[in-house]
């Protein structure tokens, strides 16, 4: 087989044409390289049934849960640049009084303090790990905090027509290319959005977008809408990192049991002396 150089040599009577061919060849090689590089980047994210595979244990390093909005350091929160697009949550004027009341009472009123389900999207950027288990039909999210379990259905089903108000809402996901878009609604009004007292009503509607930036990083964005509380939808964005520590695992945390677990299996004074350590 002749090399390209030899072929050009054969055709050296047509210099312009040869140069064009050479240029085309180089362009072809460059485009091949670029295509290959892009493919490699795409191949770097794990896949399951052709879709991005989010399986793993994830956690944010952001200060989002302390306060979604930009904030200076304060007694109960490290400083944070905020994760709200535009820097401010667009509360309705009449909703601000409750926001302020929540902030003032946050050391007692935050549902987190009872170990209760954090809700959506708070559970995602709460500073504790959660694990995603993925199948073609759904994603199962187990949050270490409270050991809450959320299912994101990805089997082309829709929200129930006569739903309850759920703590974690009802989640239906669809794929937009390599991004999982999840529509979540039918919430109750009992969870907060962060520990500074940002809140929502039972009209909360969240649209999440989950994208793997690489094998170990998720870009998580959410559009938050609530006609009873906000004047318009607003966006947040956080990065989630994969836990890669050796033997890392969730450790169950049913912290709502801490109030009474000292009585079981028997109070300490009932333990036989031989067993007391």
């Amino acid at each position, binding site marked *: 087989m002749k090399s390209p150089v030899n072929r050009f040599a054969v055709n050296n009577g047509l210099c312009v044409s040869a140069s064009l061919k050479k240029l085309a060849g180089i362009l072809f090689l460059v485009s091949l390289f670029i295509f290959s590089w892009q493919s490699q980047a795409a191949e770097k994210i794990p896949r399951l049934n052709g879709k991005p595979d989010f399986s793993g244990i994830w956690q944010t390093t952001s200060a989002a849960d302390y306060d979604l909005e930009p904030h200076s350091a304060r007694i109960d929160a490290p400083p944070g640049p905020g994760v709200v697009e535009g820097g401010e949550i667009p509360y309705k004027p009449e909703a601000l009084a409750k926001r302020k009341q929540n902030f003032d009472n946050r050391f007692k009123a935050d549902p987190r303090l009872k170990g209760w389900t954090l809700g959506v999207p708070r559970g995602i950027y709460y500073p504790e790990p959660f694990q995603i288990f993925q199948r073609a039909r759904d994603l199962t999210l187990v949050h270490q905090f409270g050991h809450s379990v959320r299912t994101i259905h990805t089997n082309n089903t829709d929200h129930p027509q006569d739903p309850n108000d759920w703590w974690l809402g009802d989640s239906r996901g669809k794929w937009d290319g390599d991004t999982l878009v999840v529509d979540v609604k039918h919430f109750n009004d009992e969870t907060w959005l962060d520990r500074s007292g940002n809140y929502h009503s039972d009209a909360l509607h969240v649209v999440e977008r989950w994208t793997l930036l690489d094998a170990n990083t998720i870009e998580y964005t959410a559009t938050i809408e609530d006609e009873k509380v906000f004047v318009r939808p607003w966006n947040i964005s956080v990065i989630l990192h994969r836990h890669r520590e050796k033997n890392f695992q969730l450790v169950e945390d*049913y912290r709502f*049991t801490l109030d009474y677990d000292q009585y079981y299996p028997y109070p300490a004074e009932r333990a036989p002396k031989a067993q007391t350590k």
Partner: protein
Amino acid sequence: MQKKLITPKILSVLTLTSLLALPAFADYEQWEAERATLPKFEREKTVYRVESGKWNGPRLADGQPDVQGQWSNTISNHTNFTDPQGATPGETPRTPLGPRETRAPSRVVDPADGQIPYQPWARALQQEYLKNFNDPVKPEYVEPLARCAPGGPSKSFMWHGYEIRQFPGYLVFLFDSGSRIIHLYKKADKNKKGEQNNKPHLDQKIRLWNGDSRGYWEGNTLYVEVKNNNSKSRFGRTGEFSGTDTIVKERFIFDHKAGRYLYSATYTDPSVFTQPWTLEIPARRVENFAEDGWNNQLGIANHKGKELILEPYEQICTENNGGFGGGSIIGAGNSSPIL
């Protein structure tokens, strides 16, 4: 904050009841009509035996036998641990129970007398819990599940229906009260150090309601070792408990064709028992039985396709509950029970 006095079970029933009154979406009426013809999930008086052997059903991509779906126990709930279809503590049966042999056997299959081999002090304590179940004048007399605490390794299988989901390297149980993640490894890797699928148990200083589970498949049987037990749950409303040194060895033996499995668990704890002992709980799939708000709590998914898809709803106990189940509490997150 307002407390809700609706249990997940009631929520499930309410949801399905209200769905019935709706105009049809897609084939809902047809699906509902099909479900209405399904038989009731009945309690059985005998334990369906399944032996360990080959798995003859479908497998998942990672080779695990596919046992995903909704299951429930076939005998009874945890009301009475060693006489499962016997009397509820502190209550007189509406109709006389009749001779013991007319009811399902004790869940305790070893030792042969069907009783947990307690040390004397522990038996006395169990009897005290039993005696005070219906009038709990001390916090420890309140059965922990009534406070929405997880049921522990075995009791979770004799409460409501539950779901099994499987993933590469994991089998996950989703119960009404809590969930359990079983970390799977290949039996051949059991004694290899540093294998990806052979993660060691958590440090034993960590103690958990549902323990820390490691397991492997062999044929039709899932073998699981549960350590890190806090042993704070009770086996039954009859007051049986385990101790703080408990190790549980479980076997889940599946019969694909029958849609059943037999669960057995051997408890070892020298601090409480005089010898290891073993319990059994038979279970079967619930999808082909009528929705009953107890064993089958599934709803009908809303979609435009032709096939019936069943789906579970969120199961959250503490936040929704005012306590339930006899001798329970009112209110959640209280530092002491309201008696």
